[in-house]
């Protein structure tokens, strides 16, 4: 086994046996986020429960009965008609029997419709306890949906009785059909819907990259600082192993754990977000349906860009860790050094880089962590030339950083930086 793999193996063993670390970075995200998601789900499920409506009908005509029948036929709705003299009495009865909606059909409901006047229906949602009104909001939606159907039906019926022609065309004379043009192809999906799909992608990608970069950087700086804290660094540096091998071995070892941690975090997060998404309903259209598919060339370029960005984060974090005394100060220094490089890239969640002012555009392009985000979109849009530029830029940047870090390891800075740090305090 080469020196490099001996060091990687030791690094993995040392980190994987750290129960606190493994619990914090792998177990917690895998348990906590899905648990949070489950809690949200319970809230949503409760809200989706049967809508129990108390119906008070003061109308004596046919249209009141029509409304009741339609409500009874609506899914997830139970209607109980009660006799009440006034609203207060109805309210009292509804509360006693744990109903959450009251629908009151006014006295002249049918008469108003027959004489082409507006008819009144009153809907009361009874908010109770800690449900936060979510259940009432869902119930109101259900009643409104029924009313919309009846409204539409009645309007068409009235038009048919008085005017010749297609009632639907008279009711809505202009029909707009929206299409989107993607990569020169016409897709029969409205741009607003496409924007929704792309936005959900463009928000999740920077978040995923942010999490991965921060975890990996903290891990590598932490492992370096741990050598100082546990006083193993001096021995390590006097072993018959090239310094660049030590740096590379530590980087690969910590990156492996860092990536496992980031994946655990993302799985946990996905579970959490997934349970929220499924509750709020999905759009039902994927990127593939829109023709936004990554080709093998695009996917390979994207993987290279991700790899280079992580290499940069790792070597930069190790470089910063040179100035740290222990794991605590390493975390502080790495956060201070990496965060300013990651946060500005969040602009890319909401804006297209081409539409930004020139100065901001170049600042973002100079930041290494913008490139994986830009690449994730370029990959889908088939814009490979910009991806090649990213590969070249990140390649140069990470090589230079790696060499500087390795150079620091060959000097005494690794040991003396701590001394100066102390003296300054």
């Amino acid at each position, binding site marked *: 086994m080469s020196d490099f793999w001996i060091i990687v193996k030791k690094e993995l*063993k040392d980190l994987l046996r750290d129960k606190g670390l493994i619990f914090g970075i792998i177990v917690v995200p895998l348990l906590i986020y899905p648990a949070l998601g489950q809690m949200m789900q319970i809230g949503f499920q409760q809200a989706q429960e049967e809508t129990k409506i108390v119906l008070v009908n003061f109308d004596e005509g046919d249209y009141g009965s029509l409304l009741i029948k339609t409500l009874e036929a609506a899914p997830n709705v139970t209607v109980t008609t009660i006799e009440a003299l006034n609203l207060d009495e109805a309210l009292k009865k509804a509360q006693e029997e744990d109903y959450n909606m009251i629908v009151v059909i006014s006295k002249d409901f049918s008469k108003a419709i027959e004489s082409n006047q507006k008819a009144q229906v009153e809907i009361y949602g009874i908010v109770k306890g800690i449900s936060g009104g979510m259940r009432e909001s869902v119930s109101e939606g259900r009643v409104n949906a029924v009313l919309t159907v009846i409204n539409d039906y009645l309007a068409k019926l009235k038009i048919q009785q008085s005017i010749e022609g297609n009632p639907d065309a008279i009711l809505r004379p202009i029909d707009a059909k929206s299409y989107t043009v993607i990569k020169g192809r016409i897709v029969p999906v409205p741009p607003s819907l496409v924007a929704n799909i792309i936005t959900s992608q463009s928000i999740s990608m920077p978040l995923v990259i942010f999490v991965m970069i921060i975890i990996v950087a903290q891990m590598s700086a932490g492992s370096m600082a741990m050598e100082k804290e546990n006083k193993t660094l001096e021995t390590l540096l*006097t072993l018959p192993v090239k310094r660049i091998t030590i740096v590379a071995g530590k980087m690969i070892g910590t990156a492996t754990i860092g990536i496992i941690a980031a994946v655990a975090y993302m799985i946990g997060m996905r579970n959490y977000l997934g349970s929220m998404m499924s509750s709020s309903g999905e759009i039902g259209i994927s990127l593939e349906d829109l023709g936004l598919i990554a080709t093998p060339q695009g996917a390979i370029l994207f993987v290279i860009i991700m790899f280079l960005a992580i290499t940069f984060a790792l070597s930069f974090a190790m470089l910063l860790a040179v100035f740290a005394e222990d794991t605590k100060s390493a975390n502080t220094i790495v956060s201070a050094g990496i965060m300013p490089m990651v946060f500005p890239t969040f602009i890319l969640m909401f804006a297209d880089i081409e539409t930004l002012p020139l100065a901001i555009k170049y600042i973002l392009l100079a930041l290494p962590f913008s490139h994986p985000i830009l690449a994730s979109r370029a990959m889908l849009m088939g814009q490979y030339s910009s991806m090649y530029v990213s590969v070249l830029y990140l390649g140069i940047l990470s090589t230079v950083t790696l060499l500087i870090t390795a150079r620091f390891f060959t000097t*005494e800075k690794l040991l003396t930086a701590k001394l100066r740090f102390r003296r300054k305090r």
Partner: protein
Amino acid sequence: MSAVKVEALEKDYGKVKALKGISFEIKEGEIFGLIGPNGAGKSTTLKILATLLTPTGGRAEVFGHDVVKDGDEVRKLISYLPEEAGAYKNLKGIEYLQFMAKLYAKTGKSYEEMLEVGVKLSGLESRLNDKVSTYSKGMTRKLLLARALMVEPKLAILDEPASGLDIINAYSIRQTIKQFAKEKGITFLVSSHNMLEVEFLCDRVALINEGVIVETGTPKELKEKYEAENLEEVFMSIVGGQQKVGVFG
């Protein structure tokens, strides 16, 4: 060839001059002691020879290799034990020795031989299968010493080797060092502020004070020269007049 050759070695930490141009030589197979009070420059000298620090002036060689220019070569010949050292807490004692033996195996003895020596030297027996985090300070020190010696380097640089050990273990370590020097021809550079320990252990010593080597010789020569009963008295008669003595001195 000299095992170690140090000429006019200087080291500054900012404005603090830790070494002020020290020179000494160590012959192959010799146990050489660098003794002096805390802050005298012992650890700095050892760290320069272990390629951890770069001298500000002068030069140092290990078996003819310059410690600054030929760091990689020097590291193949030495084994360094820092004064304050730890081992990887999440590894078992045996895994720590295995890790080290694998890295040194290409420089001389085989992996199995090194490990066998390491296990025996540590004296930790079944505790070697426990994590280092469960070890006492003394046990960790024994593990580290076993690591430093099992690789049978050409030069072992030991900074306060018996630090944290009780009388029995300290005695045992001194015996091992003597045995390794005699039987395996290993050269030792040992630093200590315990002058009695060094007197018992070393073939030759250099007394260092405030970054300057004030005397070099065998313990016997020095005692005779200064008509002293032990090295402590030698040291005090050399530097006693120059130093302000505190309440305990």
